């Protein structure tokens, strides 16, 4: 592999990794507060991508479409919490987990029935699908935009968590919900806020995913959701910075496996998950995660 090919693969890894990272942030935030692995997260991403697709087709304005996609994802995320998770707040965590899987199936099949399972071609504005050349290296503009967006969002989320009252409430909830309630904080509102934030990020991730790989279908969230979950665990679930780090590591691992061993490319998922197991063997709480009981964002 010569240098230019290596650099090209590095670029590819950055693009894939930042997409995983965007989606992993939402996973990790919900987990941090509720200790719930929200398996429907990938499907909320799919909802965002689909709504963006439909609104862009009818209105012709991509900005409007993305806003509508984010709004739809936020609505679905918050509604899911209200309808499915809230009644189970005091139930064993496993019931919550199973409900999350149920919501995931529900969303996938709902979209299957409504829009059919045939992949649709996602059209993005010219501006986002351009490819820049730099010597022999090809840089799709999304490769530059996505990491910038991801890091900006990471900083914004950290700012919300550590510099605002809402952030303080979110972090406090992660420690002890009943005590926070006693302090006069409306826990349900704050949890809804967490879902709204996480879902909005999922929608942004979904849009970028659809722009980069322009074919969307109701099951598109399944694999991405799993990968983002793995990224969150790898980085230390509950830690936002860890989720972003995990996303990048996972993206690079996948790309490099294919780059170095093209014959093994079909097993890149296996490598990614094997890597996850390795990390967990030596650091059971992930890279950034501290003690499971103490790690909060």
């Amino acid at each position: 592999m010569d240098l230019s090919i290596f650099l090209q693969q590095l670029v590819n890894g950055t693009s894939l990794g930042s997409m995983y990272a965007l989606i992993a942030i939402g996973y990790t935030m919900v987990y941090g507060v509720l200790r719930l692995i929200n398996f429907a997260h990938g499907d909320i991403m799919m909802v965002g991508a689909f709504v963006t697709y439909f609104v862009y087709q009818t209105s012709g304005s991509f900005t409007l479409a993305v806003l509508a996609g984010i709004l739809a994802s936020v609505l679905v995320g918050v509604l899911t919490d209200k309808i499915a998770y809230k009644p189970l707040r005091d139930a064993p965590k496993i019931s919550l987990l199973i409900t999350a899987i149920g919501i995931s199936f529900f969303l996938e099949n709902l979209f299957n029935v409504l829009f059919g399972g045939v992949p649709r071609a996602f059209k993005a504005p010219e501006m986002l699908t351009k490819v820049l050349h730099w010597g022999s290296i090809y840089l799709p503009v999304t490769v530059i935009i996505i990491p910038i967006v991801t890091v900006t969002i990471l900083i914004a989320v950290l700012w919300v968590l550590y510099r605002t009252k809402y952030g303080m409430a979110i972090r406090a909830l992660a420690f002890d919900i009943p005590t926070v309630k006693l302090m006069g904080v409306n826990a349900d509102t704050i949890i809804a806020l967490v879902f709204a934030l996480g879902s909005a990020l999922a929608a942004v991730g979904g849009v970028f995913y659809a722009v980069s790989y322009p074919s969307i279908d109701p099951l598109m969230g399944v694999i991405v959701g799993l990968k983002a979950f793995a990224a969150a665990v790898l980085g230390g679930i509950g830690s936002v910075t860890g989720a972003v780090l995990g996303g990048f590591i996972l993206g690079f691992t996948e790309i490099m496996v294919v780059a170095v061993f093209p014959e093994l490319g079909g097993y890149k998922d296996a490598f990614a998950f094997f890597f996850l197991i390795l990390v967990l063997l030596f650091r059971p709480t992930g890279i950034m995660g501290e003690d499971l009981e103490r790690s909060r964002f």
Partner: protein
Amino acid sequence: MKKLLSIAAAAALIGTFASAKEVKVGVVLPLTGPIAAFGQTSKGGLDIAYEQNHKLKNGDEVKLVVLDDRGDKVEAATAAKRLIDKDGVTVILGEVASGNSMAMAPIAEKNKTPMITHASTNPRVTKGKKYVTRACFIDPFQGAVMAKYALDHGMKTAVVVTDAKQDYSVGLSKAFKKAYTAGGGKVLKTVLINSGDKDFNAQVATIKELHPDIVAFTGYYPEAALLVKQARAMGVNTPFIGADGVGFPELIKIAGKAAEGFMYTDHFNEAAASSPEAKAYVEAFHKKYNKPADSMGALAADAYGMILSAMNQCIDEGKAPTDKECVNDKLRHTKGYKGITGVITINENGDAVKSAVINEVKDGKFVYKTTVNP
């Protein structure tokens, strides 16, 4: 994360009269999921064939029991079992993907229920099976056609892209490599992908590094579309050749301009339809769907026609059309059946011997190039 939903859609029964019995034909197709376009187009053709004829010689009414397996092997096997145990079908039509048909075949075999796949091309689908037949050619033939076409056009080096998850792709790659190397071509590397993957930039970089004369893609259209799009975006202009798994409108819709020049082998092209059967089908297809007739639908219609023909032959011999042994025997000994996709004769392995066409994407359309006979 496998969803356990099978949508059972029973075709409506029209105008049965008291004495006529009902003969059930089970259908297993990927109506949703990653390869839903295969299932949907198959169903489209099947519906036309069914509308044209759903009565047997003795007045019995054929009823279709259609199950969706979401393109999943486990679901396909479950569907086959359900059709036999619960619905009591005489014969099963399906699946499209070879891997899924292979999951169903042992169940058909065990229950001595004839099964006919309209589109699974992997040789192992029928190998050693007594109750499995197919209405299409097999991959060694298809792979050889691909290899010959590439070599005839002076493309001497190839990178083969194989979908490691699909038996179809693995088998086809093997067939292509064998014929290509035998013809003097050189396979530089085999690159593996997985169906469901969306990022192929790493594979594209490998292709770029090797710059072969041609990329032989043996997987299905969703990956083909994204791969060729990412390849063109990275400045790789190597021509692509694929097989019957890529010839779907979605290829052009998703890949856009990048799909231009993508060649593939297929079972049917309406531009080459010359027989009265094919013409009648194409006409009915245009009338109903207002778009060009695809090969999956034509194959499904042929498989359905073969089932009807087998049942009618059993009736001629004084046997019931629900006699599984008889129907299977007639299916396996189909000879000179005048189908939409050509004249079909089933050989001793249960495979159809027939011609293939080569198409190419040109100006956003699938254009017929040539027909290759076995």
